[in-house]
Structure formats: structure tokens, C-alpha cells
């Protein structure tokens, strides 16, 4: 009996000592199970040239200004490619948190492009667990150069190319994310009879954060269609993302100089081995068109 009282008393003493900590523990018991969705898998809506699974939030507008300079191996007289530049102006808007629409205009073949990006699944842990984020991109590109041969029976449909991509990404850790991007490009009209209309490619991209504002990004599109793989180069880009509040600056080197999928995936001619490397950048600015809440 005496022992029991001592035990109880000592328990009470320990209890009062840790009362505040105990209260915190009690609060933990009150917590409802949470589902934590992966966020900030990439800094930008592009890994380099290609789409990342990031997208504008609902009612958010992103203005993307992209430049690709000439080839570095053109030497000093061309200021290592800086004398010449390709440009794309793009707008991307979040209709909802899981659906965005984008448009752009690039000077390469005077191309207008439009696309939808739809997020299908989200990486999450906690109450709901899912290993990857999956999005689907469907795009159309319109070449608006004057017809090469006016005497032919030229159809508008001949100007069109299409891009279908499934983006599968995982944020492995706070600093490392990887994306695999199966890609199908369809050209309604191709240059020669041997050239296939459909080009399959497998994109792989990753980012490694250096600190909270900087990351290294690498993007590679492996060509799976034989003819294209034999006659063109796979695009490989290596760059740095710099994030500053509402802007993301992406600076990189790439063997691709075009900014639409039909060209940089399926028609890249530059070779890293021969120094056909282009310096380029994307500037990304976020505008909030409507306040949330």
C-alpha cells in the first residue's frame, strides 16, 4: 500500500514537471490525418525547353520570354552566337489548379502554338500516398511561313504539328526531382517521303537544388523513331534556374535552338560533340489576376 502511494506521488510529480509537454502531446493526438501533396517539384513550368509538371495556380498568369542565341562555335565574329537570336513569347494561364492553357509565338518558322496541360495525379504522402505526379500536355503548332511553292494545292492542315506528352515526375527529396516524359510528335506534312509523320521520344529531366533559390536542371530527349534518330540529334540541355520572388530566370546551354516541341524534340540538328551549342534563357514572370480566397 505504502509503495503504491509512493509510486502514485512520484508519478504525479513527474506529471506536473512535464505537464506542458504533455499538453503538446495531447494536441498531437487531436490532429486529423493529413495528406501532404508534393509542391515545388521544379522551380519553373519548364525544365529547360520542355514542360515540367509545374503549372500556374488558378487565376495565375505567367509570362514567358525565351531567347535562344546562335551557336557558340560560330566564334568571336558572331560573338559566340549572341549576334543572332530566336525568340518565343508565351502566356500561360491557370484556369484551375489542375488545368492550364498556354499560347506562344516563336520566330522559328513563324510558329504559333497553343496547348493544354492537365494534372491527372499528384504525388502525396500521409493519409493518401501516391509516388508520382502525372500530367498530360496536348499542344498544336502552326507554321505560318509563306508557302514554299504557291502553285501547289496548299492546305492549311499542312501547317499543323501536334505534341502529346505524359509528364511523370517525382520529388525524391527537398532538392532532387526527376521527370520522365514520353512524347509523341505528329507532323501533318514532312519534308521528304522517307521522313515519318510521327516521332516518338522519351524525355528525361531532373533538377538538383544548390540552395533555396538556385537549381541545376538537365533535360534530354531520346529519339525512339529510327529515321529521326539516324538523321537528327537528341536535344540535350543543361542549365541553371534562378528564382527571385515573382521571377524565375533559366539560363542554359542546349544543342536545340527552337522552342516548340515539333522542332526541338524532332528536328534538332546541332551536335554537342561539334560544339553546336546555343546559349539561351527563359524569363518567367508571375501575375495574379484574381485574389484567391
Amino acid at each position, binding site marked *: 500500500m505504502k509503495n503504491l502511494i509512493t509510486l502514485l506521488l512520484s508519478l504525479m510529480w513527474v506529471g*506536473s514537471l512535464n*505537464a*506542458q*509537454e504533455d*499538453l*503538446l502531446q*495531447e*494536441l*498531437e493526438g*487531436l*490532429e*486529423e490525418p*493529413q495528406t*501532404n501533396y508534393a*509542391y*515545388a517539384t521544379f522551380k519553373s513550368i519548364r525544365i529547360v525547353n520542355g514542360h515540367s509538371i509545374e503549372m500556374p*495556380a*488558378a487565376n*495565375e498568369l505567367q509570362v514567358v520570354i525565351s531567347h535562344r542565341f546562335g551557336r557558340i562555335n560560330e566564334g568571336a565574329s558572331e560573338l559566340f552566337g549572341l549576334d543572332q537570336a530566336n525568340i518565343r513569347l508565351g502566356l500561360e494561364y491557370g484556369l484551375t*489548379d489542375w488545368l492550364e492553357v498556354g499560347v506562344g509565338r516563336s520566330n522559328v518558322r513563324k510558329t504559333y502554338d497553343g496547348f493544354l496541360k492537365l494534372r491527372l495525379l499528384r504525388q502525396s504522402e500521409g493519409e493518401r500516398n501516391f509516388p508520382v505526379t502525372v500530367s498530360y500536355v496536348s499542344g498544336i503548332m502552326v507554321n505560318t511561313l509563306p508557302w514554299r511553292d504557291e502553285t501547289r494545292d496548299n492546305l492549311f492542315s499542312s501547317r499543323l504539328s501536334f505534341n502529346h506528352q505524359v509528364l511523370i515526375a517525382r520529388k525524391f527529396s*527537398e532538392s532532387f526531382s526527376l521527370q520522365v516524359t514520353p512524347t509523341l510528335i505528329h507532323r501533318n506534312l514532312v519534308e521528304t517521303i522517307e521522313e515519318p509523320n510521327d516521332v516518338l521520344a522519351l524525355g528525361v529531366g531532373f533538377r538538383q537544388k544548390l540552395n*533555396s*533559390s538556385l537549381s541545376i536542371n538537365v533535360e534530354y530527349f531520346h529519339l525512339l523513331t529510327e529515321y529521326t534518330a539516324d538523321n537528327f540529334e537528341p536535344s540535350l540541355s543543361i542549365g541553371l534556374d534562378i528564382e*527571385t*520572388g*515573382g521571377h524565375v530566370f533559366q539560363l542554359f546551354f542546349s544543342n536545340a535552338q527552337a522552342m516548340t516541341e515539333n522542332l526541338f524534340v524532332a528536328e534538332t540538328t546541332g551536335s554537342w560533340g561539334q560544339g553546336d551549342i546555343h546559349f539561351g534563357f527563359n524569363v518567367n514572370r*508571375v501575375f*495574379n489576376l484574381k*485574389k*484567391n*480566397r
Partner: protein
Amino acid sequence: MNKIVCILITSIALMATGQQVFAQKIMTRTGHIWFSSHTPIEDIEAHNHQAMSVLNTQSGDVAFAVLIKGFQFEKALMQEHFNEKYMESDTYPKSTFAGSITNLSDISLDKDGEYTAQAKGTLTIHGVGKEVETTGMLTVTEGKVMLKANFPVELADYEINIPSVVRDNIAKTINISIDLSYE
């Protein structure tokens, strides 16, 4: 037999008159905690309506916990940067306060009224715990206890680093407000 009836009646009477005799702890998990940052360039505000708190009405011990990811900003991008870059909420998912009301003798929580409560304890933000003292307002209406408080927090005290490019947009001292009613 009489004894048992006596005990029963007493306990029922106690239950009816003073819930606190049995339940010394009152709690909530729908507390409202928000913070604001004011600079000439930008005003930023974020709200969390799922703050949890428990108050021991006998000892005056009080605890708060709030999930950092539950703070809602006007701009999604701000919310992302807040979690990813400043609060590192994957590493430090929660902010807590554990302490006690030091002037509990001046407060009678079973009587309607407004009381100024002084609290002292450890505030943990971004994984850094600091001893703090602050005052709050306890309001009792029809047995229901409500708490309002307001206090400043220096970001540097909690090792929250703001990069130089946005240093003018985010105040060095953030004002934190609490408004909750215990059940």
C-alpha cells in the same frame, strides 16, 4: 444503498454545475491564427483556421500547435515560397507554444468576464525554440472561454532567412494574431 444514491446525486450535481470540476482541460482545433507583414512595398497576410490548443483550467498550462502548410495566402506562389524557402515546412511542419498562464489567480474562468492573461513559455517556430512572454485577452461568456492575443515575432530570432531580393517586400518583424474559442 443510501450512500450510493448520495454519491450519484452529488456527482450529477457536480456535472451539472461545473463541468470544469471533471474536465480540467478545454481545447479546440479550429483556432484562427494569422500573421501579417507590412512594408511600404507590400502587405502580406496568411491565415490558418486549424490551429489546435489545449488549456488546463486548473494549472493554467496552455499549449498551441499549428501546421505551417495550413497557412493560406492570397497568392499561391507566396505560399509555395513560404513553405519551401522560408519556413522549410517539410523539415519543420509545425509551430508550437507550450507554457502557462502566470496570473491564473486573477482569472476566474467559471465567471463571465474579460481577463488579461499573462502567458510565459516556449515558442517554437522553424525548429527554433525561444522563451517568450506575452499577454492575451481571455473572455468568458456563458461558460465558453475565448482567447485573443497578438504579438510580434522577429524572423531573425527563429533563423528564418529572407533572401536579399525580397528583403524589401517582407518585414523583419511579423505580427502574429490568435483568435480562438475553447470547447
